[in-house]
Each structure stands twice: as C-alpha cells, then as structure tokens.
C-alpha cells in the first residue's frame, strides 16, 4: 500500500510474502479433441488490473469463463481467495463479469439492471436503493436511471454494464473486451475512466482483450497468450522492452525482425545475420546457445537515421530509402538493406518547418546502441 509521502510502486507479484487472490494452477481445458487452454498457471494479486491478451481463439475468453464458473477446467485447479472453485457454480462466486455484449436486460430500466444482483442477495429495499445510487454516481449516469437500455448510447450502456457488475462488490471483476464496441476516441477516454474506477473501488480486475494498446494502457500486468498457452506474464514495460519471444515482440507494437544465428555471448549477444557483415549486438532476450537459430528484434523508434556513417556505433547498416510515411507526430522510413530485409525506422517530427533531410532512393545509415535490440531464440 502507498505510504505517506512517497508513492510505492504497486508490484505485489515481486513480494514473496504476498498471497495471490487468484491461483490458476496447471489448468487445461479441452473441448473434444481441441485443447483451448494448455497447462496454464497464473497468480493474480489483490487490486491488480490484469490483462489477458492474445489474438482471437488463443483461449483468453475460455480462461475468463473458467474464472466466472461458466466452464470447468479439464485438469488443474482454480482457487479464489484460498477457496477451491472446482464445484462452485457461477451464481455462488464472489466474481462478477462484464460481458462483451454488455448483456443488459432489455426489459429492465438502468436502475433495475444495476439492482438486479443486489435483489438476488435478498438485501433490504433501502440498502439496494443506496447501493444503486452509489453505483450510478460512480459511473455518472444518475439522470438516466429510469431509461431502458435501448434508450441510451453505446458508451452509456457500457457504463451501466460496469456499474451492474460492480454493484455486488465482487472480489474479482471480469471484463470481456469491455471497450470493443466503442469508437476509438470514446475507447481511449473510457480506458482512463476504467482505471480510475478500478483504483477507487480497489477491486481486482481481469480484462480480456485482443487490443494490445488497451492492455498496455490499463493493466498492471499483461499475460500474452497464444494457442492456449501462456507465452509471457509481465508488466507492460517489460512486455514491450523485454519480450521473451519473437511472438510477443511481434504481437506488441511495431518491431523489425532480422533472422540469423547466435554468435558470441558476452556482455550482450551477437547475431550473425549476413555473410561478410558485422554481427548485430543486442541483449539476450532469453537463454541462448551459440550457433542456434535466433532473431534480432529492434523497435523502429530506437533506430537513428543519418547520411554519414556513424563510426561510434557497432550496430550500423546501410540501405536505401524505399518509402516514407508521414504520420504527423512522426515519420516512418522504410529502408531496404542490400541483403534484402526492409528495416523500419521512426523519427519524431519535433520541428514544424518542413525540413526533410532524406528523400526516396537516398542511401542512408541506420544505427542503434548495443542495448537497444534483443536477440531472441527461434
């Protein structure tokens, strides 16, 4: 918890004494011959905003539905707050879910939708009313309480769904692609609102999304999944800067991938990528063995572009500008190396005056520091 004065970094997963709220231990889920989840283990801690990220069909939704109780694991255990969830049906879990379609009850008003779960708990009328008002205030929908779901906008519906799933003060809130149906601008605003609400209520959130930007923005930790397997679980910074595999590096953000073989391993790792060319120097992203197949991963914004050969940098390659993309805040240069690969390089447009140093077909040098790139196995 944050102490007075200086803010501590929220990182319970680094504290060995911290007990996770949710333990997913060796969980496998099969549908007939198809393995949707393959031996996944994750610990999720109190007050975390945890993102399950992956392309559609990677098993993230199945994992979430197992937390909600709509599916049961074929193997392995899920426990929430120390209690084994194996035989607990969804209506008896202290877990609530916000559905991708919102699943608002169309025949009930906004007010009655939010009150729905509270009434099932047999709370007194006054208590229900007080809690509903509190929730309406939290999502700023007070004046829409009497409307039916089809009489409010998509963004408002999303907030009703959030209020309804938070009303019972669950230990864990599951959000299935919560912002998927909103347009881009609204989605960005709502991301911050979601983080705000998560912080205010102190609820543990698990969000399922295929949108990497969304996961990076909201989450304290991100789990990247592919084909039912967990590839990497880490904070957004680590996922971006220290991906443990080509899959993660490629899935999150933009990256240049250059294939080759592992050279000398010392302070960093070398990648031999073309005959008669100096090896590329980078940080080892995972365990490497000399001579094995590897891929050099470098983010476009970490590459510098110059007309002169930058003699002070070991990682430098020459190429010809193939394409220039002007995005306003930055420009992307696509540079073709003589060996074939096209490397993308991003340069911020810091001055307003049009002053292009480079143009199509120019011969340029690309360079980056020894620590900017990663050598990843495979």
């Amino acid at each position, binding site marked *: 918890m944050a102490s007075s004065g200086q803010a501590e970094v929220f990182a319970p997963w680094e504290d060995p004494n911290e007990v996770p709220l949710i333990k997913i231990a060796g969980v496998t889920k099969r549908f007939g011959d198809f393995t949707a989840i393959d031996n996944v283990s994750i610990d999720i801690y109190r007050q975390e905003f945890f993102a399950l990220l992956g392309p559609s069909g990677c098993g993230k939704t199945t994992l979430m539905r197992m937390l*909600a109780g*709509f599916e049961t694991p074929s193997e392995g255990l899920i426990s929430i707050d120390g209690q084994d969830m194996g035989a607990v*049906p*969804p*209506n*008896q879990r202290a*877990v*609530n*879910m916000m*559905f*991708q*379609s919102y*699943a608002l*009850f*169309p*025949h009930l008003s906004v007010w009655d939708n939010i009150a*729905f*779960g509270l009434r*099932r*708990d047999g709370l007194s009328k006054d208590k229900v009313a007080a809690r509903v008002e509190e929730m309406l205030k939290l999502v700023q929908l007070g004046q829409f309480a009497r409307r039916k779901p*089809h009489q409010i906008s998509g963004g408002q519906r999303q907030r009703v769904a959030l209020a*309804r*799933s938070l009303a*019972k003060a669950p230990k864990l809130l599951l959000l299935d692609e919560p912002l998927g149906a909103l347009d881009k601008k609204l989605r960005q605003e709502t991301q911050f609102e979601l983080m705000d609400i998560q912080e205010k209520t102190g609820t543990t959130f698990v969000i399922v999304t295929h949108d990497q930007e969304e996961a990076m923005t909201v989450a304290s930790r991100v789990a990247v999944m592919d084909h039912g397997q967990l590839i990497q679980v880490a904070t957004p910074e680590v996922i971006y800067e220290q991906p443990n595999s080509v899959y993660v590096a490629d899935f999150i953000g933009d990256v240049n991938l250059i294939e080759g073989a592992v050279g000398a391993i010392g302070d960093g790792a070398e990648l031999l990528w073309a005959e008669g060319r100096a090896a590329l120097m980078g940080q080892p992203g995972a365990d490497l063995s000399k001579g094995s197949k590897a891929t050099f991963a470098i983010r476009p914004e970490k590459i510098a572009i110059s007309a002169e050969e930058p003699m002070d940098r070991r990682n430098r390659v020459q190429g010809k500008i193939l394409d220039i993309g002007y995005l306003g805040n930055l420009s992307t240069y696509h540079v073709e190396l003589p060996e074939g690969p096209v490397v993308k390089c991003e340069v911020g447009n810091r001055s307003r005056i049009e002053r292009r140093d480079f143009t199509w077909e120019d011969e340029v040098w690309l360079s980056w520091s020894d620590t900017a790139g990663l050598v990843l196995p495979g």
Partner: protein
Amino acid sequence: MRRLLVGIPYLWLLVLFLVPFGIVAKISLSDVAIAIPPYTPTLDLSGGWSAIRAYFAELDFENFAFLASDDLYWKAYLSSLKIAAISTFLTLLVGFPMAYAMARAPAAWRPALLMLVILPFWTSFLIRVYAWIGILSTEGFLNQFLLWIGVINEPLTILNTNLAVYIGIVYTYLPFMILPIYSTLEKMDGSLLEAAEDLGCSRAQAFWLITVPLARPGIIAGSFLVFIPTLGEFVIPSLLGGSGTLMIGKVLWEEFFNNRDWPVASAVAIILLLILIIPIVLFQKNQQRQAEAEK
C-alpha cells in the same frame, strides 16, 4: 400510381369485409320469412323513393332483443369465452416448452423443427379433426393402447365431451402459439441468462426473471392468435364435442342451417364480432408495442 397502391388494401377491405358485414348487419335487422331469401324486407329499387323509405321503416332491433331474452344465447357466449380461455391457456402450456426447446436446439436443426410445426397445415383441417375421432372414440387407438398397456380396464369416454374439444383445439391451434413465442425466444441473447446467473440467479430464477418477460410479446401474440379464432370455432365442437358442449359457433350454424332463421343467426354473428373487437384491438396494440421496442 401511389393512390392506386394505397387504394388496393382499402378496396380489399371494402369488398371482403365491409360489404359482407353490411349485408349481415342488414339481415340481422330484418324479419324471418318463408321465402328465398328467407327474410324480409328485400330492397326493390323500382318502387322509387317511397319503396326505399318503407324498406328502412321495416328494419328493427327485434332479433337483438330476442337474443337478450333467451338465456341460450348468452350462456353460449359465456361458455365459448370459457372454452376459448381454457384452451388458450392449455395451448400455452403445451406450446411454450416446445418453442423453448426449438429455440435452444442447434441452429442447424431449427429449420427442420420449424417445418415439422408447419407441416400439418399441408393437409385439410377437416381431415385432421376427423382423424381425432378415430383416436378418441371408445374403440379408438387411444383406448386400445391404454387397455393394452393395462392402465385402464374399461374404455374412457373422451369423444363427445368437452375434453375432446380441448384436445382438438390445442392440437389445431398449437402452431399459432409456438411460432410467435419461438420468434421472440430465438432472438434472445444467450449471454443474458449467463449474466443473470453471474449476478446470483439460479437457473429457474433466470428463467422467470429473464426468459419469460422477454418472451412476453410472443406469449401475448400467440394467446390472441389462439383465443380469437377459438371463440367462434364451429367445426371442432360439432365434430368432437357432445350435446353438452355449448359454443356460439355451433349455435350460429344451427340457426342458419337447421332453423333457417337468418335474421337471428346474423344477430348472433354481429354480437360475436363485437365481442371479438376487444381482443383484436388488444392484439394490435401488443404488436405495435413490440414493433416500437424493436426499433
């Protein structure tokens, strides 16, 4: 062109509803006569203005007064209402689970199931009702089967009782109940039930709190579609019902064809129509509300 298009439905209504209705209304105000047609007066335009005036002077509400004085008629109306209401309820009881099962069936099966519901319409309604005589009679298939499995020792008397009428009505009008309920249930988003469960409902609670309210427009539409035609039903009570089955459709038929009292029969028909206006208006309102909700 546009006026013509708008005009066609009105022309349809005029020719097929308003003109016959006008004729029946006129007959209901006439007196019975031994003639062809069997009522008087008949309009004779060749007599000029005075003949027309004399014609209208002869029309009166005598037949309606007669309907009110003889308790057979209002008892028949009440009995029809009762039979229609009970049959509607029974049809709902049988039809809802069927519609529910169809809507929950795998999507690939649904067209086939729908087909099975509609299939009986391909044979004549009359033949199907006759078939029930063969099933329900004392020596019928049902009794033979029950005797064979030993549930009963003596054949049951089902044919020519109200029970047979209920069976016949439920059987005949079942598709009218199933189809509208099915169409509302099929549209229902399955995640609503999961959401209800997630918020603490048992399966049964979710059914009563979510499924039934969302199926309500279908239930109301189906109930009216059964209730309205059942109220004036004539074939089923006369074929399956007994002497104790009192329904206004049967009375109407007897007045027309056995008594040849067209004016009284027409008066019975006019009152029946007036009674039916209420549920028809309610039905229309329900349809309108549903259409608005879907917008």
